[in-house]
């Protein structure tokens, strides 16, 4: 394995992981805001964030799996 690769893996384990975990927490909160309607919390900004959907659709699949939904919980997003 190349030295650079070894060093990068070592970096990921030593502290990259912590940063990734923090950024994922932020991402989870962001998604919760985006889809709060479907969990019974009214979202007044719904129409303004519709534009963002095409960009987040791939992450959406990962997100719902992390939240424990095997299939997409939102009927009009057929990601799987």
């Amino acid at each position, binding site marked *: *394995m190349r*030295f*650079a690769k*070894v*060093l*990068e*893996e*070592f*970096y*990921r*384990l*030593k*502290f990259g*992981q*912590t*940063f*990734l*975990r*923090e950024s*994922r927490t932020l991402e989870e909160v962001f998604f919760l805001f985006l889809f709060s309607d479907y969990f019974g919390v009214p979202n007044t900004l719904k129409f303004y964030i519709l534009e963002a959907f095409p960009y987040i659709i791939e992450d959406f699949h990962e997100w719902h799996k*992390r939240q424990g939904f095997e299939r997409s919980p939102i009927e009009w997003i057929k990601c799987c």
Partner: protein
Amino acid sequence: MNALWVILFASVMYLFGYLIYSRYIADRVFGLDEERTTPAKELEDGIDYVPTNRWILLGHHFTSITGAGPIVGPAIALIWGWVPALLWVVLGAVFIGAVHDFGALFVSVRNRGKSIGTILGDFVGERVRLLFLLLILALAVLVNAVFAYVIAKLFVAYPSSVIPAWGVIPLALLFGYAVYRRSANFVILTLISLILLYALIGVGKYVPLDISPVAQTLGLSPIMLWIVLLFIYTFFASSLPVWLLLQPRDFLNGIQLIVILTALYVGALLWQPQIVAPALRVSPEGAPPIFPFLFITIACGALSGFHALVSSGTTSKQLANEKDARVVGYLGFLGESSLAVAVIIACAAGIAIFDADKFHQIYASWGEAKKSALLAVVEGGSNLITAIGLSKELAITMISTMVVLFSATTMDTSVRIQRYILNELGVSYNLNPLKNKWLASGVAVITSMALVLSKEGGKGGMIFWPVFGAANQMLAGLALLVAVVYLRSVKRPTAPFLVPLIGILAITSTAMFMNLTGNLAKGDYLLASVSGVILLLEVLIVLESVRALNRGLQGAGA
């Protein structure tokens, strides 16, 4: 005798442990199965659960478990002569310590990467999980008290280490920021940071920072002032999000550890120093009896319960293949043990390279050894690494800075662990004040600071070292217990875990009982009560262990 024989003996035993004994544990006791899916693969999420190359994981695991512990313990224990210290470090590692780490990793991998505390709750009972949390809490208080003293003592004895030790903080922040921005090649960034770190060591040599004048104005001893400053720093570092920014320091420290260990061994091979320490001293002046105190003075390097937290906390979630557990868990511990062996060589042989009498000055009595063992490590270690062409002064600054850095990260982590546990207890028992992070950090810092400052204004911080060793080994006892209960539940042989478990519980309780009665007789009520608390936890753990094992036996019989 030539120190090369020590290296040869350790190498042969480590080879035996890795090639033969660990293989026996892996195949006959655990029955490791490479076909079985590990948590890293089953629950892969790109962050916590990631299948990782075993050698890289070994590097990460080794540098996470190794701190300042294996440096201080063996240095003090040399008071009883170098042979018992070496035998306990090497044989303890091969037959107990490394097996314990390997076991904790294995049990966690078989239980979806859960931590030892959770597995204890599941397999042995909620009460033991609570004991486990209280024991870690006690251990963390002792760790802070001891390491605050270690750092303060080094800052006062070697003022040249002050600038590099504090300078690493802004350096790590800059490094973290540069990596985050991805503005340059990662390898180049790492190299630049390391060069800057060594440059800081050079600067420290020319600009030593002595705080005695400030301490005098304030009417404090320099050690006490450093201890107070360190705790103020730790309080903020553990509560503010700054700790996130301090993470890169762990990365740089990890690389340092590998550099310094290599330098010590290369130095020892080049110098081939003669051992000046006596082989065995049964009753040195003022020292407690060699049995059981040798075994608790050296915890890290021979057996350390804290490792189970690392094994089951992060490492078990990264293991790509069950068979890799042997390389990572067993070999990782041998790495730590080899640092303890390097310290023994530095203090027993390296120390006399330039001044034949130095060893006997430092190890004249138990009181002197406890106060000055650290200086023996710095003196002996720096003598050894002069072989690679460094000047003596630079070598001293380098070794003292490294010991400070390792101790500082240990202290940071330990205050944070204390805060998490206090929070967890607050949530479990609905104690609102403990849920507050500032208050929890405050409690953590104040209890540790009170402990260290109550002993002759901070000068006696090292007095808690044996109690710390005992608590650490009791924690190891709990991980051994989990392994025994788990192995019994899957009908596997348990002897390699049961025998060390009984031995450890017997040794630590004898030592704590002697510490309690001895200090009561001396009228040292503080140390007596600290030993009493640990002994009480010990008795409860023994009772719970017997209950759990009985239940296991009845279950097996039914």
